């Protein structure tokens, strides 16, 4: 008698918890993205509206683009929001991702000491500025970490006809923030995204010297991890989030987002 009632109780408890799982919490949804979207505060500005509609939190894994793509390749994330167009295309071509879509863009700038020993200030071409820095033999700090920023730096060097080897080239293999600190200490030049630079501006003796080159534009793309490759990914949740990122409401929220009164990201669909 007692065992029967205990068993019934257990069953009831099981039913309750199972019910909870079905009704309240949707399956976990993991977004692998770059540190720039998270550190700048953009995600905190645009994700809550989606989370309310989805009924649960989005787990954000903020890492470098290289690591984010790797996480996607291994099926450790459901949706990716990264910025390295060529590598995104390769990722999709290899069958790791589907539904790639442009979401927004921000831009890179070349920052350096106000004394500007390489004389690049006011220039509008990123590649030409890098060539001048190398020719002057002054310090330049590179991310060196296969991040989206590093990928862009390599593309600029290619445009400039290849990167000469010189002793002032410092491959730091660190995030954008630490690289800005190193550049500040060494009075070096550095290629940085505008958002991180603005966030660090108060602490640095660096100035934006080159900006506005279309080759310095930095598009962010989102794509779902291919559920045909990884059966366990949250395909429905990823689709919902991807649709939300491209929606008018979210695009407007991206356009309205400000840091210190400055717009950091520009929606892919200009109104």
């Amino acid at each position, binding site marked *: 008698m007692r065992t029967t009632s205990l068993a019934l109780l257990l069953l009831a408890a099981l039913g309750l918890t199972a019910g909870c799982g079905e009704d309240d919490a949707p399956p976990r949804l993991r977004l692998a993205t770059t540190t720039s979207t998270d550190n700048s505060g953009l995600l905190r500005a645009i994700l809550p509206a989606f989370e309310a509609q989805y009924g649960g939190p989005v787990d954000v894994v903020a*890492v*470098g683009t*290289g*690591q*984010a*793509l*790797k*996480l996607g390749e291994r099926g450790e994330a459901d949706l990716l929001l990264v910025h390295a167009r060529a590598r995104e295309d390769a990722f999709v071509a290899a069958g790791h991702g589907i539904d790639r879509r442009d979401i927004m863009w921000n831009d890179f700038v070349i920052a350096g000491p106000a004394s500007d020993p390489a004389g690049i200030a006011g220039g509008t071409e990123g590649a030409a500025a890098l060539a001048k820095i190398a020719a002057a033999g002054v310090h330049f700090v590179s991310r*060196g*970490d*296969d*991040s989206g920023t590093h990928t862009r730096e390599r593309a600029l060097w290619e445009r400039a006809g290849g990167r000469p080897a010189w002793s002032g080239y*410092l*491959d*730091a*293999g*660190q*995030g954008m923030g*630490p690289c800005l600190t*190193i550049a*500040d*200490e*060494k*009075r070096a030049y550095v290629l940085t995204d505008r958002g991180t630079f603005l966030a660090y501006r108060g602490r640095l003796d660096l100035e934006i010297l080159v900006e506005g080159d279309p080759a310095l534009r930095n598009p962010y793309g989102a794509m779902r991890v291919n559920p045909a490759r990884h059966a366990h990914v949250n395909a429905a949740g990823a689709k919902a989030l991807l649709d939300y990122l491209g929606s008018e409401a979210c695009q407007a929220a991206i356009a309205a987002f400000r840091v210190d009164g400055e717009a950091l990201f520009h929606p892919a669909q200009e109104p």
Partner: protein
Amino acid sequence: MDFLAEAFAKAFRLITTGDAEVLHAIGVTVLCTTTAVTLAALVAFPVGAWLGVHRRDGRGALVFLMRIGMFTPTVVVGLLVFSVLSRRGPLGSLDLLYTKGAIVAGEFLLAFPLIVVLTHGASAALDRRVHETARTLGAGRFRTLLAVLSEVRVGLVAAYLAGFARCLSELGVVMTVGGNLQMRTRTLASTISLEVRRGDFARGLACGLILLVLALGTALLAHHLGKERRA
């Protein structure tokens, strides 16, 4: 599983093909750790023994301070050294930031309190008659300290090893004041952290394996030293 196998294969390839970056990282790791810990030990051994043998009130506070120092997060030590060596810091003119010297300074500070505390423990546990006898036989302060240190040498090996272990794989100092600069201040530990961010997990794991081999070598050497001295 294939992931681990790939890492082992990669570690083997990195060593046998003489990957310049990895070999350099091994060199920086061994050079900085050995220099920092050896310098720290040279100062910390006598200090620890002195604190262990003479137990007066004021010295208890010093031991306490060292015990706290032992727990300082490596990043905090890194930040302290950074603020001193920074362009805007008191020693900024030395231009030591982002050099191996800066790493050695930081790791010295990491190892020092640890070695002092362990040496103090070993000497405090020593029979008081050792240094009393030394004093009666006419040994000066310095000779007495040497006598104590020679009695607790197995403890000294352990203390050195503990300092070495803390520095060999530490990341806070090498990232903050070393800067993780390629072919300059990049160590095995900071290479691992970089490879993980790059998404090359196998290469990261491979460097981890090399680090473990270094640790194994150090442990074996210490074991050997401990045995020989006991005989």
